[in-house]
């Protein structure tokens, strides 16, 4: 390359930072793999392979007696109801929290106006609350609420509501900020309030993402409700815990198939909603 050509095409200034970032990611990843004692080759050792095969072998034949299927259907319905009620509460809690921490809905940020420094100060405790809600795993919330409202699905509903509201609040807020924030800002700049700016300026921009993420979370809630069933919060999980304890692999595999179907349904609903909202 001649000097003239080098002058004509300057080097991309993003090259350095990109290389550095890749290097940092690799350097950070290595100790993580070490600490997690991750060695894929152990999976392929004959001793371990046969142990896994034996475990999976107990899953067959599947339990298909009418009595058991009836029981599973009831539990599945309970799980579905638990996850749905929990999600509804989580959404109702998550939206106001997301609106509260959203910077693009801050009126004092325009200008910036007098007292604009108060905004981040007021948002900080709400962000802290969101972190608290989602950093404590739902199973711990479930253990807490089982003590308050007793064994059964109600504890699971509350656990999902609190834990998922923390996650939804954070992700909703990130969805709001990632989209086009000018419509909301234009409404604030013409004297509109925060909530109206949200409904007129943010929702129409972010709705498909909000819906698709919420449905995905609902799917996660169905899975989470199983884990919580292990600590007595009802639904399929409680049933699965019994079957595992009684070493009845056939029943476990039947319930896993029901599970697969539930997640499949969630997937279909998500795809349908996305199509409708496009």
């Amino acid at each position, binding site marked *: 390359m001649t000097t003239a050509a080098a002058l004509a095409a300057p080097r991309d200034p993003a090259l350095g930072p990109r290389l550095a970032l890749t290097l940092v990611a690799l350097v950070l990843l290595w100790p993580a793999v070490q600490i997690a004692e991750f060695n894929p080759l152990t999976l392929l050792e004959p001793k371990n392979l046969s142990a896994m095969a034996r475990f999976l072998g107990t899953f067959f034949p599947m339990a298909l007696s009418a009595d058991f299927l009836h029981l599973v259907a009831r539990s599945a319905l309970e799980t579905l109801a638990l996850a749905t009620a929990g999600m509804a509460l989580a959404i109702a809690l998550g939206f106001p929290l997301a609106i509260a921490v959203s910077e693009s809905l801050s*009126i*004092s940020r*325009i*200008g*910036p*106006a*007098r007292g604009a420094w108060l905004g981040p100060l007021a948002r900080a405790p709400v962000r802290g609350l969101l972190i608290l809600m989602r950093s404590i795993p739902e199973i711990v919330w479930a253990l807490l609420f089982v003590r308050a409202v007793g064994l059964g699905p109600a504890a699971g509903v509350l656990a999902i509501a609190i834990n998922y509201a923390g996650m939804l609040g954070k992700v909703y807020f990130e969805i709001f900020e990632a989209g*086009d924030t*000018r*419509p909301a*800002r*234009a*409404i*604030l*700049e*013409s*004297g*509109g*309030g925060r*909530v*109206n*700016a949200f*409904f*007129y*300026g943010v929702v*129409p*921009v972010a*709705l498909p993402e909000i819906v698709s993420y919420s449905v995905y979370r609902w799917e996660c809630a169905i899975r989470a409700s199983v884990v919580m069933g292990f600590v007595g919060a009802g639904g399929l999980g409680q049933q699965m815990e019994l079957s595992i304890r009684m070493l009845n692999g056939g029943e476990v595999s039947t319930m896993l198939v029901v599970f697969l179907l539930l997640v499949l349904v969630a997937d279909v609903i998500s795809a349908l909603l996305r199509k409708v*909202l496009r």
Partner: protein
Amino acid sequence: MKLLLADARIEFSGGRRALDGVALEVARGERVAVIGPSGAGKTSLLRVLGTALRPSAGSVAIDGADPWSLPRSALRRLRARIGAIYQSPPLPPRQRLVTAVLAGRLGAWGFWKGLASLVYPADIAGARAALARLEVSERLFDRCDRLSGGQLQRVGVARALYQRPELILADEPVSSLDPQLADLTVGELNREARSRNVTLVASLHAVDLAMKWFPRIVGLRAGAVQFDCPPMRVSQAMLRDLYATESGEIPTQDYRPLERPQPGPRAASGSQPLCR
């Protein structure tokens, strides 16, 4: 609304100056066109007048009061009386025209009426009338993303008209319209301003449009007012200076040659190149 800027400066982090000491006084009901090359600070000027941007130095007064020392609620009420039109209208693609236009009055309506209007549009007739003035009313229940750029820009204008503000700030309101529709739109803004004694400040790319419709032309260059004159006294030399083009090209619609009104006797003397 009455506007007053004194030595207004906007400095962004990094030291770039968008406004470099602008003094401007606009009386109630006055109609002002701001022209100047791209990057001259036209948008910043309009945003300062619309209380969307706070000057880093100097002062701004709207109806005699500094908006930035008003209490929160008073500032919001003030903003509800200012209608802004943007070069690319900030309308959500999925929103229907009727909702987008009605959103203009959110500042005046308040919380509950705003929410109720999402359930059923509060003023379909009003939205339709505003859109009709810009010849897009037949799309009332269409979504914004079904419109062309030019139609969308007119929806943005319709929203500002529906707001019934006392100050209209239009930032390149006709940049994606053909000359005929541009004329209709700028004309509609001027009619609104004249009939309701509304103050109108518009930045325009096309000098001929500015000269045709506005009794006062402000030339902005490098964040400073270069001239502030009635169109009669804006000379070809002043425009060439403003745009500082070697070819002597002055931006007009479709590059049509600029037809200037006959200069009056005072302009011919050239004793006062900056007019004000």
